[in-house]
């Protein structure tokens, strides 16, 4: 797996990964659209079941630990995310659900907390996930509003596999020449 030939799509035959991503810098929004060849209930379950979501939320070789998940308006989803090699302390996040419409819509604000689950006071990330029936499966549309650059930077550093983050940090030095 470490030295596999890079294929553009061969390793990701499942799901549809067509372009699917739009960045609108002016409105600070990111739109992600994907279609999966499974019924809507399965996709909803993957987002709202604490065991299921932990299986795919974090990068490979990172572990997501769900401490609480109360999927209803005002309810919280508390999770830790950290690399398996322990190179970075796990981050703590609290997502507070705003709207919950089973098999249709999930809207939440995701914000960082400290190790005692006290919110750090950052603005948080407004995210809306829509689930709709699509030909042969389920379409998932995510719209997330990103805050300022420092929070973006933090989220990327905490959420990105260490190899990438390190590689990018070192490579960005190239620009300063």
């Amino acid at each position: 797996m470490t030295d596999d030939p890079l294929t553009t799509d061969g390793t990701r035959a499942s799901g549809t990964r067509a372009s699917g991503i739009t960045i609108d810098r002016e409105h600070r929004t990111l739109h992600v659209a994907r279609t999966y060849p499974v019924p809507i209930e399965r996709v909803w379950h993957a987002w709202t079941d604490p065991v299921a979501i932990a299986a795919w939320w974090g990068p490979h070789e990172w572990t997501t630990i769900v401490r609480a998940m109360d999927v209803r308006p005002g309810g919280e989803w508390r999770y830790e995310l950290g690399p398996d090699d322990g190179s970075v302390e796990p981050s703590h996040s609290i997502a507070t659900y705003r709207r919950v419409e089973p098999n249709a819509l999930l809207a939440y604000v995701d914000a960082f907390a400290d190790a005692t689950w006290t919110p750090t006071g950052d603005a948080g990330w407004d995210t809306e996930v829509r689930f709709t029936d699509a030909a042969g499966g389920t379409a998932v549309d995510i719209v997330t509003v990103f805050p300022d650059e420092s929070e973006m930077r933090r989220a990327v550093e905490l959420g990105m596999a260490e190899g990438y983050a390190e590689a990018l940090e070192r490579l960005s030095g190239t620009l300063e020449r």
Partner: protein
Amino acid sequence: MDIDRVQLRLSAIAEPNRFRIVELLRQGSRSVGSIVDELGLGQPQVSRHLRILAEAGIVESTKQAQQRIYHLRPEPIRDLGDWVERYATLWSERMDRLGDHLTGPTESAPANEDGADR
């Protein structure tokens, strides 16, 4: 805005030997032979890594006398320094993992303990 391309670049440089090659090229252009000598890898392996890096648009080569000289292209590195794109890449990869989760052997065939999918 082409996130798939950014993702391709990230995957290309995330591989440790390719990352070493990119690091080496940051110091200046080099021939394949010089990269082979410096990193102690086999020539076919280095050529393959260079081909992948070239396909991802990270390096390009020019021909000088009998040799091919490789150097970094500045523009893709600049792209990778963009936080918004990196954040988008995170989401793109997360959605790939969701797809793998939804269609993977353990989900689609829970009775199949060994997870073999053939």
